[in-house]
């Protein structure tokens, strides 16, 4: 096995569909046993990237090496060393649970001596022991997802790609699913997972935020929260909210003001210095402040801030 068996290395990867640039010069490097998250809105280029990494789409330019094999030159070797779960459920609904497992064991050429062990393991993992003879189409959504994961990793691949594995799954099942992902990562498997749920992104070791085909930020969730915001975040509770937003958007030193629930999130240069200034700024305008404190941004704040910045940059282009 090549020494970079567990890695995914992407350099200047581009995918164009006609005039549309779906993936625009992205660079990624994952580590062994890492859960690498790919976060972005629908249409940002997440699935397109994952499909290129699985050898399902040919990159327009750039290079991607997965498990030590080049995806453009040697897609078959890539496929033998990865597990892939597509966004849409894509096992055979008219096959029994056990028949789907046997099919994929065959497709991955699981050796006969390991077969029963792998089947048992997959059933165990998917929590489907005793349900082998159910028709797959009749299973609830969460079970299907677990079965799909089981089928994708029957051959113990060093790298796994999961494209929105938890979409349409209830929160408890989602939580269990992430436990499974971390279990596999704990065994040294590199897991590459896309999502558009912000709270799921917190479960990843590292994250790439993708927007309009470009990676706008990359790091651990806490790094992103700490470094990716230009400025610091203030939470303000005040009355009346509407007048406050309007006033604050024009206030000196405030880079951004937005309503979050029943409070305001302000982006300022230096939170400590800005607090007394803003308090008096609001009070002279007849707005009563009940609470004002510095908060750590959530990934959502980071994402909103980054995509707004990216949007503005885009608009400034001639």
């Amino acid at each position: 096995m090549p020494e970079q068996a567990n890695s995914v290395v992407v350099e200047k990867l581009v995918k164009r569909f006609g005039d549309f640039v779906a993936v625009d010069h992205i660079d990624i490097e994952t580590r062994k046993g890492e859960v690498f998250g790919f976060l972005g809105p629908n249409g940002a280029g997440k699935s397109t990237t994952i499909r290129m990494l699985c050898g399902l789409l040919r990159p327009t330019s750039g290079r991607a090496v997965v498990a030590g094999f080049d995806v453009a030159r040697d897609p078959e070797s890539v496929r033998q060393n990865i597990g892939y779960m597509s966004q849409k459920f894509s096992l055979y609904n008219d096959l029994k649970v056990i028949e789907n497992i046997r099919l994929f064991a065959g497709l991955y050429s699981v050796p006969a001596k390991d077969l029963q062990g792998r089947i048992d393991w997959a059933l165990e993992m998917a929590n489907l022991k005793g349900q082998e003879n159910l028709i797959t189409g009749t299973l609830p959504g969460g079970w299907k997802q677990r079965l799909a994961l089981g089928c994708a990793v029957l051959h113990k691949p060093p790298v796994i790609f999961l494209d929105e594995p938890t979409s349409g799954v209830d929160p408890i099942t989602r939580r269990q699913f992430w436990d499974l992902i971390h279990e596999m990562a704990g065994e040294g498997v590199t897991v590459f997972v896309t999502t558009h749920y912000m709270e799921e992104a917190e479960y990843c070791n590292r994250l790439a935020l993708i927007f309009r085909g470009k990676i706008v930020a990359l790091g651990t969730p806490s790094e992103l929260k700490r470094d990716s915001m230009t400025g610091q975040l203030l939470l303000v509770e005040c009355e009346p909210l509407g007048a406050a937003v309007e006033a604050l958007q024009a206030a000196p030193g405030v880079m951004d003001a937005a309503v979050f629930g029943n409070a305001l999130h302000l982006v300022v240069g230096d939170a400590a210095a800005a607090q007394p200034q803003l308090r008096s700024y609001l009070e002279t305008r007849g707005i009563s402040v009940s609470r004002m404190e510095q908060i750590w941004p959530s990934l959502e704040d980071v994402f909103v801030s980054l995509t707004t910045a990216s949007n503005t940059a885009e608009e400034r282009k001639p």
Partner: protein
Amino acid sequence: MSLTRLLAVARKEIIQIIRDRRSLGIVIVMPVTLMLLFGYGVNLDLKGMPVYVVDQEGSQQSQDLLKHFQNSEYFHLVRVVSGYPQLTRALDDGRAKMGVVIPWDFSERLRDGRPVQVQALVDASDDNTANVLIGYAQAVVQGYSGERQINWLGRRGLSVQPVAISVQTRTWYNEDLESSAFIIPGVLALVMSVIGAFLTSLTIAREWERGTMEQLISTPVSAMEIMLGKLAPYFVLGIFDTVVGALIAIYWFQVPFRGSFATLMFASAMFMIVVLSLGFFISVLAKSQFAASQIALLITFLPAFLLSGFLFSIEQMPIALQWITRILPARYYVSVLKKIFLKGTPASMLYADLVPLAVFTFVLALLATRSFHKRLE
């Protein structure tokens, strides 16, 4: 090429066929239905065609002539009516295919040795039937006329030298002139077109439609393994249906089988590969089950039905159509079928059909393997 992966695909395909009532129904019911339909339903023989008669004279002689019609197996004298209005009505509403009118001076003219004309009104809405009826009617009247001449000469003491030249006919290959013997062997080509092209046209399209293709091609299975694994079960089913069809033809419809079974199987295997490849190719291009099945019917079933020589003889088609039939694999297979069943032609003398069939087999199989790629684009 990995046998494990190929068998995994084949096993999956078999399970899906067995679990899908519709395709299983097509595989089992269709060959029998088509056999019975064409064996009993299509009859190109004209026998016992209904005839109405207006006998204006009603003499001994006119009765004699009518007896000749009656004795012919091709005509059935339904009734004698009194005049043209009734006859016209019978022809109009299809109760009669032909009307025979014997003139009021029939026996008088015969006695005087003057020429006499009997009128035949023929329903020519089906021109083929009409032509055949006219031929039969002329033969009946000529037979009667010849008999009278011999009697006339005999009564004058002249030595009767009957017609000097006659044709001794012996019908070969299909001795009883049964059209079912001509049609039924060709039904096998129809059966295989349905099994091969129609069913397989759905297999790849279905995977795209249901989204299962994406998972399938993310595994190391090769395009060739997918194709062979998917087609192998249908090949077996097609050959099975061919054998069932042949047995029905031979033992139920008593169609003579004079050739070698091995040659039949060899040609059938080639034709099966042809239709499977076509079905697969269509399925790859169409990507939707509905479109694929429509195209499959259009380019395999219809030509096999209309242009293969199965029902309608190629020699009687317009020249342009005859040329088109040359690019239809079904034409060669139907020709082989008829020769093997009825004539017992050995394989060595079937090269004019087997060679083109082999060429199609090779070209289409190649086309099918080249058409499918493991890419989403």
